[in-house]
């Protein structure tokens, strides 16, 4: 239906938004190819939501420009609005209304007749497993159910571009996986998704390209592989049976993995950051390390392999951490700044 099929879904140049003295978004350049999931990764306050709000025509940029499917978000806001849907960070549905009422309301606002709005609403509620909760006010929904009704409201008309602003923040791992499944289903039908997240593993699961933003600036951009290569492949954590064996284990790992090995405050534990450039996958490297330790007669009680956490990505990219504890996902790494 588009006359601009060759345009990227989103293109921004030097986008700026200031609130008082804070430059919330400070010169963001993005190019999001149509038909993909694009991840915008960053900590709280990095400028992710502000960027999304400008792209969704809710905020006017102070400088720079942004186009959605070739349409300017300020001058052609109405054309942009007809092609995008927004699922905000906080449930973008009316909490006082029931699930059905919300979907019928939005269906009517999108131009469906009464019967069509109700039918589409019921079909969506069924597809999202919410039929039982259809007549309940949304304020009584659980976090996972809210996310579902929220996304359902966003696809009443299949949008060409869907903004998902931190869709899984605050969800338990199970609900999180279900949201991921929904996102995959939406993209499989050709919708472009711009996903903001604080979790590297979420971007990793869903996005084909990722922009890392910090303090309103894009500090890294690329495919998942490119991004990870710049950060390292992750880290291994070991707990040994015997604390006395730790120095020997450290020495072995340091030689074998050419990695940074750190003792933990826990006297039997240590962790090693894996290098991405060694050619082996993180799992291969970890397997080698375990073999080597076994040959040296060192007993390993427990072992875990972690992806680089957002903290590590940030540390690697910016030299400072996110300034918050990301008690998140599979990023198991914790930096130990205790003098050993």
């Amino acid at each position, binding site marked *: *239906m588009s006359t601009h099929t060759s345009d990227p879904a989103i293109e921004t140049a030097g986008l700026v938004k200031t609130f008082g003295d804070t430059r919330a978004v400070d010169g963001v350049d993005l190019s999001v190819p149509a038909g993909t999931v694009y991840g915008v990764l960053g900590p709280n306050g990095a400028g992710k939501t502000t960027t999304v709000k400008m792209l*969704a*025509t*809710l905020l*006017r940029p102070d400088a720079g420009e942004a186009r959605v499917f070739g349409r300017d978000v300020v001058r052609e806001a*109405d054309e942009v*609005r*007809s092609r*995008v849907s*927004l699922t*905000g*960070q*906080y*449930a*973008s*549905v*009316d*909490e*006082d*209304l029931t699930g059905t*009422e919300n979907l019928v*309301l*939005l269906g*009517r*606002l*999108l*131009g*469906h*007749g009464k019967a*069509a709005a109700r039918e*589409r609403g019921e*079909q*969506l509620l*069924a*597809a*999202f*497993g*919410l*039929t039982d909760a259809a*007549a*309940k*006010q949304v304020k009584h*929904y*659980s976090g*996972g*159910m809210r996310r*579902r009704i929220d996304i359902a*409201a966003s*696809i009443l*008309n*299949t949008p060409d571009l869907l903004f998902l602003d931190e869709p899984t923040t605050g969800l338990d791992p199970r*609900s999180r996986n*279900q949201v991921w*499944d*929904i996102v995959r*289903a*939406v993209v*499989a*039908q050709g*919708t472009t998704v711009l996903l903001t997240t604080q979790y590297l593993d979420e971007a990793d699961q869903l996005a084909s390209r990722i922009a890392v933003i910090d303090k309103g600036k894009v500090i890294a951009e690329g495919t998942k592989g490119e991004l990870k290569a710049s950060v390292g492949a992750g880290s291994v954590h070991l707990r040994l049976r015997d604390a006395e064996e730790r120095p020997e284990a450290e020495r072995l790992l340091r030689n074998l993995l050419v990695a940074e090995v750190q003792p933990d405050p826990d006297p039997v534990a240590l962790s090693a950051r894996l290098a991405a450039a060694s050619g082996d996958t993180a799992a291969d490297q970890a397997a080698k390390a375990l073999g080597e330790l076994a040959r040296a007669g060192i007993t390993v009680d427990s072992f875990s392999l972690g992806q680089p956490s957002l903290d590590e990505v940030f540390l690697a990219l910016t030299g400072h951490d996110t300034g918050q504890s990301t008690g998140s996902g599979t990023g198991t790494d914790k930096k130990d700044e205790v003098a050993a």
Partner: protein
Amino acid sequence: MSTATTPESRELTPVSADSLAALLVAKERPPRPSALSTSVTFGWRAILKIKHVPEQLFDVTAFPIMNLLMFTYLFGGALAGSPGDYIQFVLPGILVMSVVMITMYTGISVNVDIEKGVFDRFRSLPIWRPSAMVGYLLGDALRYTIASVVMLAVGLLLGYRPDGGFVGVVAGIALLLVFSFAFSWIWTMFGLMMRTEKSVMSVSMMVIFPLTFLSNVFVDPKTMPGWLQAFVNNSPITHLASAVRGLMAGEWPGVEIAWTLGWAGVLLLVFGPVTMRLYNRK
């Protein structure tokens, strides 16, 4: 209202990827809805909210009844000889005052609502921009109608007899609703401008109390000092109260109706655009 069983404790039905895919395939979109249609839809939202939280009708029922009883019996004897005589004069005025006073709740609901995520969704829809605000006012028109009917019912019990009959009363209420709709854009503006509910409330009080009391609602302005008469005689509330009083008494107060509609037009033309500017910038 159904008491929810804690939803967390129940297992959610998994999302059906197949039916979801089937729904997403439908790419055709209905034509863009008209401004009237989206405004009425937002009005329906306001009515649904009344349905779910009927307690919010308290301000349009108890408050007007309280006003009517209080002022009729407090001033009736002193001003008109008896409450029964006074109510013939004062009821249309108190009706105007009470409805105009409760319009200020619009600002508070806008202020509370606008911070919620759902407004981001409304604002990202390809619809006529003012329809969300107009929707509030349409929902409120229902509340004002309820308030008017309640007050008239109580007034009739107390001995009020409108000479204008049913038609005169309906015409009076209709004029009051038109004025209230236009006047409410002051509140939508404050609702969007102020940071907190409390500040909306206090600013509204500062506007509404002088405006409604400094009018001809309770007494004939001729008893007032000259400088006050100048204000009172030109207040939109005075024109509105005179027009409603006239209509309900079976007269045709053309000049007062014209003044009232003129004021309504000015208020709408000034505060409507300011509201929309704030709404777009929010």
